[in-house]
């Protein structure tokens, strides 16, 4: 009998505490599957952020540490100095990475750190209860923009992949969406490429996942996926921003 599916050894066999319809679980599994397939589980070290995915170390079957809010890329930089032969990654949400941690992410890219950052963009603060993130859309209602985000008060949503692609030390930058089976397959390829770039010491690698937050968006899981397609992708276009030229 052929084995059609096997649960990855990269994940602990527990159910996650993430909300129904949240795509953190998919992103976790893709990263862990990729590490597993590459034979890197034993030499991977991860940094969990502040945010919903602070608990990612409960599920990811690799050595991990927690981070202060937004500092994961600096922490990963320190880890990589001690273990330059290991695979070091951060897993961060948009409040963590695009707001309080902008300095750390830009400068990790700037130094060309041989680390990989997995960035979960769901256009909102999840763990603290649905406040506006820098990635929140114009008109999007959150607990700190009850009438919807306005450009006048809050500026326009921040596009992190585009920004990081302009930084010299960034070797690979790609945005993917966890919105469909083909989107998930493309995301997996991007994860594998990013890890490969790190392993070849080409520079900083970055994968942005357009992700869902049904709870704080006030949508059901299916409608949330639909919102990724109709609203997020037009503003946050998918594709490679650096590292696959030509």
């Amino acid at each position, binding site marked *: 009998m052929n084995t059609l599916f096997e649960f990855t050894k990269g994940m602990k066999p527990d159910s996650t505490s993430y909300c129904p319809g949240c795509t953190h679980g998919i992103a976790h599994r893709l990263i862990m599957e990729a590490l597993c397939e590459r034979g890197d*589980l*034993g*030499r*991977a*070290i991860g*940094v969990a952020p502040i945010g919903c995915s*602070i*608990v990612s*170390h409960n599920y990811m*079957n*690799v*050595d*991990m*540490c*927690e*981070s*202060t809010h937004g*500092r994961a890329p*600096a*922490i*990963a*930089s*320190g*880890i*990589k*100095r*001690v*273990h330059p032969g*290991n*695979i070091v990654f951060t897993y961060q949400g948009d409040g963590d990475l695009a707001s309080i941690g902008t*300095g*750390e992410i*830009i*400068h990790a890219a*700037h*130094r060309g750190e041989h680390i990989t950052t997995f960035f979960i963009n769901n256009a909102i603060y999840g763990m603290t209860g649905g406040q506006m993130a820098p990635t929140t859309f114009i008109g999007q209602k959150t607990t700190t923009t009850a009438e919807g985000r306005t450009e006048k008060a809050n500026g326009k949503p921040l596009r992190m992949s585009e920004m990081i692609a302009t930084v010299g030390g960034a070797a690979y930058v790609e945005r993917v969406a966890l919105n469909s089976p083909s989107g998930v397959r493309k995301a997996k390829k991007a994860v594998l490429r990013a890890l490969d770039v790190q392993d070849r010491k080409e520079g900083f690698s970055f994968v942005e996942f357009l992700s869902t937050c049904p709870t704080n968006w006030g949508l059901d899981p299916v409608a949330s996926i639909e919102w990724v397609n109709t609203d997020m992708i037009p503003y946050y276009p998918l594709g490679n921003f650096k590292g696959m030229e030509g």
Partner: protein
Amino acid sequence: MDDRRLMKGNEAFAEAAIVSGCRYYFGYPITPQNELTEYMSRELPGAGGSFVQAESELAAVSMAYGAAAAGGRVLISSSSPGIALMQEGLSFLCSVDIPLVVLNVSRGGPGVGGIQPGQADYFQATRGGGNGDYHIIVYAPASIQESIDLMGKAYDVAEHYRNPVMLLVDGMLGQMMEPVSMPSRDAYALPEDVSAMKPWAITGHDNRRERNVVKSLRLKPDELEEAVEKRGAKYAAAEQELASYEAVDIESAEVVFVAFGSTSRIVKDAIGLLRADGVRAGMIRPISLWPFPERAFEQVPASAKAVISVELSMGQLIQDVRLAVNGRFPVELIHRTGGMLLTPEEVAARTMDILEVK
């Protein structure tokens, strides 16, 4: 010929860290400690280590956390406002029981303040500038040689207690030069297997052990209380084991000074001046600021007329002095602040004023 080396404080601190096995340094420019950062940038790569000029003090302490959690011996240094920025990381490091050595070459404050020597970071260092129930172990060397000796000790203590240790000096000690005996770089043998020495370190589990997770978050209050209480027991042991001081002529003293770091050197000269005037003066010099060496005060003779805290701040050390004296003697303050230094003559004159009033 003399085998001592004439070294600037900041460079000696850096070399002392290297000879103690430090191979990772993360820094950000700030006066008056830049020579240390510059020295590390020159020396660490050749010593098989790594130097990173961080984008901020916040990033520096975070990089240090990463490197220390990964098992490295790490140094970070800064001066007062930069140390203020690092408090987030120091509280966090305590919460995850990760050892680190931090050097504060302190200057006048508050805020940006000035760049001349100051001791107004006493509260920041000993009370904890960050959130939560924690302590940083703090040593205050008074000479460059003592700084070198305490640097080695700081790494051992940090790793034994799995807690950050701070060396608190000021701009005077950082900028001055003195002849020193520096151990060789072979004095500390770097561990071949970090995991054997630090089984908690995140090194990659290599498919041979359960994964290591370094975690601060404890959402259940009973679990958090248990973790903090456990750390509390560690701090109680540190208070018993680490309190240290130097006592100078206190047995028959009619006035006992309390001073740490560079100020204690000024006070030593003042004691000489007072003795020439027939005043029997002595000094308790705390070497550890946390834990504070309260037991030293048991030696103050009943005949003492006053205990005087001498410090480059508006009166911070004096709070611990009052707690240690516990009402047995009048406690007075002689201070300058803002980067102004006391002179031995000034200390002696103000002591005479205090004694005349008594």
